């Protein structure tokens, strides 16, 4: 059977490129000042709520609020080609793989334009062809607490829909996609713009919405972290649901329905 329109498939793979470019170059930019603050201002003399650093003793530390976690080898202190480095995120997570703030920013804006242009086109298209209403918005029945709880239990037991039901998005899946599409991505774009001094002058409402530039920077980072969590869950679900069939359906649009229990394949 056919699943996923061309617009959905094209947007999906464009996003793979844009989002990975953004996440990795974003970590390069974070490495320039690995502290996050709340409020309008925040710099080295001020108190960050999140800080990744190296101790004098050569240990990597992640501090969130008053909780400190030793992260030597991964965050704060790590090795590249046998040499110890003391940047926050390690080379294999960042773009470029060596530290260059200007290159990181360049790639970040390239990814940002790709994400925003493709995202706006996809959104308009999905509203026009009613993809949002037909496939993404859950019905009232689907978001009834009992129904949702049932769906959560099914996910926890890795009991995924089979037969015809597998061709449609299930309620938890719909909620996950909707929150990425209408909450996380818009928040990421707005907080990104909220860090631009030029945009701040004309669109001061973004500063008011998030409570200042440093708060916007913090929310930008948290939203990116949530996006990573979504991607991890998403990939996990693809693997559990049958990676070959799922990936093929996102490339060619052809999807083989998993047979109902008891049917012979």
């Amino acid at each position, binding site marked *: 059977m056919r699943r996923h329109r061309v617009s959905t498939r094209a947007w999906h793979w464009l996003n793979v*490129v844009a989002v*990975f*470019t953004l996440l*990795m170059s974003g970590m390069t*930019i*974070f490495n*320039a*000042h690995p*502290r996050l603050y709340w409020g*309008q*201002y*925040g*710099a*080295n*003399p*001020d108190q960050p709520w999140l800080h990744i650093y190296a101790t004098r003793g050569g240990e990597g530390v992640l501090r969130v609020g008053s909780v400190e976690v030793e992260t030597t080898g991964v965050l704060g202190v790590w090795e590249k080609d046998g040499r110890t480095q003391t940047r926050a995120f390690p080379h*294999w*997570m960042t*773009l*470029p*793989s060596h530290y*260059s*703030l*200007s*290159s990181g*920013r*360049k*790639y970040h*804006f*390239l990814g940002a*334009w790709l994400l925003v242009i493709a995202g706006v086109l996809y959104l308009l298209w999905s509203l026009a062809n009613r993809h949002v209403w037909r496939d993404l918005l859950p019905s009232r029945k689907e978001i009834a607490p009992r129904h949702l709880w049932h769906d959560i239990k099914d996910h926890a037991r890795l009991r995924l829909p089979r037969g015809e039901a597998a061709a449609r998005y299930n309620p938890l899946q719909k909620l996950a996609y909707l929150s990425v599409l209408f909450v996380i991505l818009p928040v990421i774009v707005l907080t990104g713009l909220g*860090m*631009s*001094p*030029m*945009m*701040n*002058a*004309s*669109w*001061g409402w973004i*500063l008011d919405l998030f409570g200042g*530039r*440093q708060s916007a*920077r913090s929310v930008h980072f948290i939203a990116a972290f949530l996006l990573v969590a979504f991607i991890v869950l998403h*990939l996990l679900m*693809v*693997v*559990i649901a049958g*990676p070959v069939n799922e990936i093929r359906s996102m490339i060619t649009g052809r999807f083989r329905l998993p047979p109902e229990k008891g049917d012979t394949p």
Partner: protein
Amino acid sequence: MIIGRRKLIAGLGAGIALGGCQKILETEPADGLASSLDLFTRDAQRLVTDRNALAREYAPEERSPDFRANGSRTVDTPEYRRHLANGFADWRLTVGGMVARPLSLSIADLQQMPARTQITRHDCVEGWSAIGQWTGTPLSHLLRLARISDRARYVLFRCADSFGDTPYYESIDMIEAMHPQTIMAWRMNGQPLPERHGAPLRLRVERQLGYKHAKYVTGIEVIEDFRTIAGGKGGFWEDRAGYQWWAGI
């Protein structure tokens, strides 16, 4: 067991994808495309914003208790020590280039002119911000006084500080130069501009990132093109480390 193997394959795939992403973006075409986006971003920002929109101004109690100093924190020459010792009485600011009336002004001259005081946020390209109060002479006042040519497109700032043998400089376009909050500041938080913040004179260009805010300014040059000056990219960090000339984002 099957899931284990699939996970392993997926993991390997992700690893290759990450490494590939790093490699592809480091090639010429991808890098060139990314670089040309600089001015595209500027044009897009100008399209959706008011060119005279003011940067946010804050209340005195919203200022940073300790304003971080960055970049050069002094000028390491005997000449600058002498200026520092006599309170910059002999410091001169020249205004030249494409002007009908070149100027040479002392700090006292500047302080006789109309002044503007503003409490604004300084945003470093690295990600941190600090809020402080600045008082200075509007750059637009100086440019009008010097009667700039119609062909003028950029304003370039020459600085006394240098990194190694390379002097600091920066440039902005006429829209940012004529903006009412763009000032040559000689006071900070009610005190004469401190040494580490660029004494006696620094640029404040409030809708741009920190590296544009040239410190220890000695000369203002009105120009048509910056490609023939120094490294040709319009500023010290632009030449040295590839920082974007457009620093509005």
